[in-house]
């Protein structure tokens, strides 16, 4: 019976409406409780900032494409090195850290949960092998369904029960938590080196449109009562003028009613999808239009995909984008098609503030967060490691908190960017409460993890707690942003499941994390039709036998399974 008492904490817990109150937090057996006995281990926070453990709803931390990045980029693994200690294994890498650094660095920043944003079902075993090796943090993943033959065939034949049965089977097979849709239909087109050009451009050979794929998956997602909404990476990513596709994609789900207390559509790394203009020559930021839509509609959430200047390893199931990136920038190209399911690409890039379109894109992530009034609607992410590595979250946090810091950064960006963005006119500076929303509370809410005890410090929640060496009362983040950034970079204490796992940015314990996944029961004729189709496809088209395909229990050692029912 381990007990802990954190005294004199200045707590920001937005899910419970706690806004900078000085209070004590009691912990027993890994959970937040109302009170503990006198013998509890006591930590005196001394008025310092206390947040729930950070939650990352969109990051690429495990699986085939991350490992392709490591194998392709030994120069990346040669950075960020720390030798092994009595407690920790060696750290390597910056954009593509090894599994150990992956977990340690999150924990050092006070993050305790992270969700891998793209699991191809056929390669899910690999994803879970890496997730299991990532120490400390709790994990989960989103499964790719956007270009899957089983999905497209069911949609073309207008059979939503069969589609739901397949989504349920795919989540089980991949031990996934939610439905990810990347460049819907484009993955199949990329099988022959093509792409889809917009929401109504039919997928070659399958006669369904991206619009139908998004709509059907969003409807089925709610009928399945999944904890998370569909998680969409829009078509035409990185193409000037794509903000129109993005707005039209939002509209597809406008009338879909969420069955849970959350959005009915999450659109990811929207920075890359808010581009105006007709080509890179006249490219401008259209984040104002996107933010305006968000300000007028409540069914939708997004994440920033903030760009961080410097080295990045872009990795995505959007295969055509990566071919374009590699040819445009003469960069290395890793492509990874997955039969019957999806594609992926990995390309290293370097974001320089002296290149105007990178300068504008850097501003765009911030604009989305600052122009959207409701902090719950825009999550802070870098789409690690696409916009940049997650270890730079404190940089992004302080950019949102300080206009002065933004001005300093802008001064280093080429002037060619200045008339293409909105950042210079924005006065808004986020406060401690906003940042708590954008880095933990909203992530947990968007993923449907609040009921699982994530993202807050209410009684019964997981005792995942970050204490930062920052005194909110005495610290003006709009001016002292360097100090704040340093504070967020290395927590004074990170507590995971009631155990101190990091102190002053140094790992002190490496427990194993848990993995969240969803099992949905589909109890109707659609299941039989789905199995007939699935068996046919395995017999004729898959290169793996069906009996060997699904992820076995051995690969998820500490599962947390949420059961839902299809209606």
């Amino acid at each position, binding site marked *: 019976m381990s007990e802990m008492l954190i005294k004199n904490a200045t707590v920001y817990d937005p899910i419970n409406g706690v806004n900078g109150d000085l209070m004590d937090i009691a912990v027993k057996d890994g959970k937040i409780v109302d009170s503990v006995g006198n013998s509890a281990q006591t930590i005196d926070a001394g008025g310092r900032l206390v947040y729930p453990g950070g939650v990352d709803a969109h990051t690429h931390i*495990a699986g085939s494409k*991350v*490992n*392709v990045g*490591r*194998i*392709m*980029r*030994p120069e*990346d*693994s*040669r950075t960020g*090195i*720390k*030798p*092994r200690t009595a407690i920790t*294994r*060696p*750290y*390597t*890498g910056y954009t*593509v850290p*090894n*599994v*150990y650094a992956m977990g340690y660095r999150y924990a050092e920043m006070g993050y305790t949960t992270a969700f891998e944003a793209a699991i191809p079902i*056929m390669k899910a*075993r*690999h994803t879970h*092998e*890496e997730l299991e*090796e990532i120490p400390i943090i709790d994990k989960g993943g989103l499964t790719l369904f956007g270009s899957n033959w089983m999905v497209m065939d069911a949609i073309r034949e207008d059979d939503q029960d069969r589609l739901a049965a397949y989504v349920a089977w795919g989540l089980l097979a991949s031990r996934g938590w939610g439905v990810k849709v990347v460049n819907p239909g484009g993955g199949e087109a*990329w*099988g*022959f*080196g093509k792409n889809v050009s917009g929401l109504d451009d039919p997928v070659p*050979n399958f006669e369904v449109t991206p619009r139908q794929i998004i709509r059907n998956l969003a409807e089925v997602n709610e009928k399945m009562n999944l904890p998370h909404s569909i998680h969409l990476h829009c078509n035409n990513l990185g193409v000037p003028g794509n903000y129109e596709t993005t707005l039209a994609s939002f509209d597809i789900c406008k009338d879909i009613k969420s069955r849970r207390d959350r959005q009915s559509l999450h659109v990811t790394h929207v920075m890359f999808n808010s581009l105006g203009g007709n080509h890179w020559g006249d490219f401008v930021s259209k984040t104002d239009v996107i933010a305006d839509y968000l300000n007028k509609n409540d069914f939708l959430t997004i994440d920033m995909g903030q760009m961080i200047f410097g080295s990045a390893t872009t990795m995505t199931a959007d295969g055509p984008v990566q*071919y374009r990136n*590699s*040819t445009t920038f003469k960069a*290395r*190209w*890793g*492509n*990874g*098609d*997955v*039969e*019957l399911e999806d*594609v992926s690409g*990995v*390309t290293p890039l370097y974001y320089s503030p002296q290149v105007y379109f990178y300068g504008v894109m850097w501003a765009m992530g911030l604009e989305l967060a600052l122009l959207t009034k409701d902090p719950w609607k825009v999550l802070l992410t870098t789409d690690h490691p696409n916009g940049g590595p997650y270890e730079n979250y404190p940089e992004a946090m302080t950019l949102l908190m300080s206009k002065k810091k933004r001005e300093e950064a802008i001064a280093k960006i080429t002037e060619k960017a200045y008339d293409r963005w909105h950042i210079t006119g924005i006065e808004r500076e986020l406060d401690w409460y906003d940042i708590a929303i954008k880095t933990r509370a909203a992530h947990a809410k968007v993923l449907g993890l609040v009921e699982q005890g994530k993202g807050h410090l209410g009684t019964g929640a997981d005792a995942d707690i970050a204490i930062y060496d920052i005194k909110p009362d005495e610290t003006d983040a709009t001016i002292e942003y360097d100090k704040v950034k340093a504070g967020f970079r290395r927590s004074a204490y990170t507590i995971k499941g009631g155990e101190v796992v990091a102190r002053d940015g140094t790992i002190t314990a490496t427990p194993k994390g848990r993995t969240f996944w969803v099992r949905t029961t589909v109890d109707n004729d659609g299941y039989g039709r789905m199995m007939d189709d699935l068996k046919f496809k395995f017999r*004729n*088209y*898959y*290169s*793996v*036998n069906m009996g*060997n395909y699904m992820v*076995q229990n*051995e690969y998820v050692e500490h599962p947390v399974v949420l059961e839902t029912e299809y209606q």
Partner: protein
Amino acid sequence: MIIKDVLCPFCGCLCDDLAVKVENNKVVDIMHACKIGESKIRGHDRIKAPMMRDNKNSEFREVSYDEAINESARILANSRRPLLYGWASGLCEMMKKGVLLTEEVGGIIDNTASVCHGPSALGVHEKGLPTGTLGQFANRADVVVFWGCNPVHAHPRHMGRYSVFNKGFFTNKGRRSRKVVVFDVRKTDTANLADEYVQVNPGEDYMVLSALRAIVAGRVDVVPDTVGGISREKLVEVAETLKGAKFGIVYFGMGLTQSRGKYKNIDNAVSLVTELNAHGKHSIIPMRGHYNVTGFGNVCAWETGFVNAVDMSRGYPYYNPGETCSNDLLMREEIDAAFIIAGDAGAHFPAQSIARMGKVPVINIDPFHSATTEMANIVIPTKVSGVELEGTAYRMDGVSLRMRKLVDVDFPSDEEVLDKIIAKVREIKGASS
């Protein structure tokens, strides 16, 4: 009892459609496997018990597992530059323990790719790798190239299951849906089954690749009359075939990785395939040998950041092929102890490396007798993975699968032996520090 969906512990095809009949805990029949796979599952020359000897010229004496494990740990813990090599014919679970043991002893971990597809990894560092799963190629590829590889003998079911004779969604006429081109220095049995055999002069693959790239780029004018023994007309014809593909796939083997040019050949081949994507869809994939050599590359990469040849003597991973590969270290006579597991250095390393291995203590973990056994001081037999033990392996295309257990035996697993060695090493190092 017939066990279905059995995975084959032979080559990188990792066929998962075998059926094995087991009676009284004995394998009595194996269905769907190739001859080599069948032979692997049946096994031969099994080592029955742990053995040790002080002098490599003397006879082995049987010892207990504890004795062999403790002595192995003592050698590794006291070594200044131990090499931990092999790993490719084992499961990912034991590879993770191998990386940990290497950290504990400050050694170098390297796998069989070092003398096989290691140069492919260097090619990937240079240019990346546009690739995919074998089913993607099976369903779509209408032009199939084998370059410096001979699957008829090395990957016997490859052409039937994945690449040439099988039917797929867009390749529903099977063999007739595909044009098959073979580049090789000799007319192999694979070449005999091709539509087009292109004979390359030994060591001149790089030039042939460069010529094809020039033609694909529209610069036939810079191509000499013959390149690598092939006429310009022939090269133009082949380039047109490649450009005309809806989906082209290049399978390449050690004819490309281990001939003159080595990793530069792979760089050039990947460049050709990348450039062909301006015309159709094109992919390229190495024909990996051992059934789980791909698994080692993956495990090593996620554990250390690097794909093989990782030196842990600094307390963190250091990778510099040319300096930290097995043969670099053996030929420089740096290695003072060798731990060989699930790979046969004795059969595949050059004489100069073998000479060094003859002078240092060699620990060999393997179910079967091999050339390495002949130069070992300690031999520890273990379970046969995928026959007597379940666990993870990666097919040549990076698809991870779980191998099945068919029969029960009393031998310990590789992982169990490694766990015990790690514990003992910690004990020895703890006592001395």
